[in-house]
């Protein structure tokens, strides 16, 4: 397994190098000029040209790419064209809100969806199954921002229980941190819960039709024991896969949720940077995303071993 991990980590470097080149090339080709954004509405073409020159944006592609890679190899992701802050600092500021939202969303999603999916499978074609699957379809169909506004309307504006927006760092206290994450996690978690519940139901249903489940039932094992120790464990591979993909998606940007709840996460950082053509941030963030995706996929693959002893690397 060790050699497998080493091979995969080696592949990560290659993937990131390809991503870096492709992203840099695409940004070079994409219309848009940060110098024009900096200069503002009241600027002349001459002003913009001077700013381009001062930012080094008038240099040839290969020179700019070479400079960026050289700095990257020295641990420098560059600085924002606009606010002149290091990209690493800007990303660092966003890591905590993003991870907090990701973790809370996953907790909400997993705690609700896996039991519901398993119950739906155990009671397949019953009213309960239909109700759960109906909820799943609803959760999947309601746009996140609609659900977010409904939650805000009820819990913030009517009941005054929870804040409308914002993020409080954990250093300001667990409770304010938690209060600010409840609504965003519920809004975002519902979509993932719906998705995971459907996958769980399908996967468990498949396992429940296997011979070893019938054997367990014939041996007189309790239904809950069969579900937890035999069905769910064997149905785990697709569920873990979909959860892993969800982690990647959440980290790379729950932009709508972050926007509606004004959470300064990585998703909004990326979109803002794209809108104003802040190339160093876009390049840095996408590089981090690609590394994150590769590492999550690796961890998912490795986790299969614990759920399915037939899998070997």
């Amino acid at each position: 397994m060790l050699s497998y991990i080493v091979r995969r980590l080696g592949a990560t470097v290659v993937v990131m190098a390809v991503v870096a080149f492709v992203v840099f090339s695409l940004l070079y080709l994409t219309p848009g000029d940060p110098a024009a954004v900096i200069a503002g509405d009241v600027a002349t073409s001459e002003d913009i040209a001077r700013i381009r020159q001062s930012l080094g944006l008038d240099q040839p592609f290969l020179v700019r790419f070479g400079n960026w890679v050289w700095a990257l190899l020295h641990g420098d992701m560059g600085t924002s064209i606009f606010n002149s802050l290091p990209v690493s600092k800007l990303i660092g500021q966003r890591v905590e809100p993003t991870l907090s939202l990701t973790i809370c969303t996953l907790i909400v999603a997993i705690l609700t969806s896996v039991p519901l999916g398993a119950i739906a499978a155990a009671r397949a074609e019953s009213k309960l199954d239909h109700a759960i699957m109906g909820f799943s379809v609803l959760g999947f169909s309601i746009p996140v921002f609609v659900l977010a506004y409904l939650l805000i309307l009820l819990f913030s504006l009517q009941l005054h229980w929870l804040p409308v927006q914002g993020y409080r760092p954990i250093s300001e206290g667990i409770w304010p941190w938690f209060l600010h994450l409840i609504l965003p996690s519920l809004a975002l978690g519902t979509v993932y819960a719906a998705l995971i519940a459907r996958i769980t139901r399908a996967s468990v249903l498949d396992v429940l039709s296997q011979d070893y489940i019938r054997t367990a039932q014939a041996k007189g094992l309790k239904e809950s024991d069969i579900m937890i120790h035999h069905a769910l464990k064997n149905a785990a591979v697709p569920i873990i896969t979909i959860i892993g993909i969800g982690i990647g998606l959440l980290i790379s940007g729950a932009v709508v949720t972050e926007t509606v709840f004004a959470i300064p996460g990585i998703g909004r950082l990326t979109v803002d940077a794209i809108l104003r053509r802040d190339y160093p941030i876009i390049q840095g963030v996408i590089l981090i995303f690609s590394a994150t995706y590769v590492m999550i996929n690796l961890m998912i693959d490795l986790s299969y071993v614990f759920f399915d002893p037939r899998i070997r690397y």
Partner: protein
Amino acid sequence: MINKLRRSAILAVIPAAVALGLTSFSLPAQAQQQKTLRFIAQADLKILDPITTTAYITRNHGYMVYDTLFAMNSKFEIKPQMVDKFTVSPDKKTYTFTLRDGLMFHDGTPVRSADVIASVERWSKRDGLGQKLAESTDSWSATNDKTFVLKLKKPFAFVLDALGKPSSNVPFIMPERIAKTDAFTNITDPTGSGPFKMVKDEWVPGSKVIYVKNKEYMPRKEAPSWASGGKVVKVDRVEWLYIPDAATAANALGNGEADWWEQMPPDLIPVLAKNTSVKVENIDPLGSMGLIRFNFLNPPFNNEKMRRAVAMVVNQQDYVLGIAGSADNGKPCASYFTCGTPLSNNVGSSLLTGKRDFEAAKALIKESGYKGEKIVIISAADQPIVQSQSLLTTELLRKLGLNVELQAGDWGSLITRRTSKEPVDKGGWSIFHTWLVGPDLLNPGVNFALRGNGEKAWFGWPTDQKLETLRDAYFDAPNAAGAKKAAEAVQGRAFEFLPYIPTAQFILPTAYRTNLSGIIVAPMALLWNVEKK
């Protein structure tokens, strides 16, 4: 039965306990906020340098951390701000300024003449009026740390207007070590001598900017009026929040999580107007002006008759409704100078106020020799003021039988594409829309969109020597009456040549909690004098 009762009681108590817990935990935070003003800004502060950019959000940041030598008051008078006294020589070629006592930068160093000179010189490399001042300047020199002298080559009547310019670029005073930075390179150090200090370590771009009261700041004794007068800070801390979603911003204000929302879209006025804890007001006395800008380098709008044909059918009332949503927040303004200010006038304005005559316009188009060339209107779907004007103009041009195509992208794409001088089939453009705030259109000196200096002019690059000559005549005007006459002449020529078409004057209202008082009525958000109870 008892068990059932007990269970019901527990079930009833749980939500109450949760609710109590939630509210009680939020109380200390609210208590802490008493001296913190939470202000939802109009945009995200991306750039700290008010000289390299003309972005209004950066200008507003400038007013927080910097001070100015002079400032304009609500009567459009230029009043001393950092300057204690000044004299003008009889030949009007020498200005001697003396700084007020006790002016200190945030780093504890005193404000010196050298800082002022370096700041003004940097500003005058970027700002249009500053450049005009620089053309007339022979030298700036420091007599001592508090006194400095401006020597002119020839009398220039707008020295104080330039130094007290209220909007972008504002000649803010910075420490010499910062002001020595190239005028095209962003400064990153927000040290100024203004009433607030920026806490840079707490700055989260895209989310919030933190300022604290500058306790060493010595306000003037006069009452505040626009950016002039006493800048007395009445809160300890300001949190500038950037909330990109308007509905969330409205909810945050309504729920007491924010105290003041600088600019709200008109469609949310009814939502907040119902909330008795919130006041919705128009505190911008000048508002902003929308405009249609042509590309003068390529057909068909390099032809004056084509521009005139469009102007003949523009109905400003439609643009008012398109931009501001209702007549309460806007009005037609057929002047190249902000309506309601001293130089606004009606010379030539009948082109916009007379009968909207499509037949006459079509005849003029025919006369112009228009051969069906494609007209590309570039727009920004993420900027409602731009997009609404673009949609209206597109419809107008279609009604005139012109071959028009609306190409909407985002603002970042628009401001890049408008730099292109190519024809439309090579990525160029024919028309774009934008808006400028009232202070940027007060007179021919600051209204950069009126320039007719060709390649050096604003995007669209109109060339009109007559307009330039009339603008120069404005600068040479000996007094206010002469300046007004010169401005009228500029406008008369502008309505003939049409460097752009003014579309509507509008105001984006502000909204604040009723526990705030002392908000200054001004064409920009100023946070001193605001008290939170």
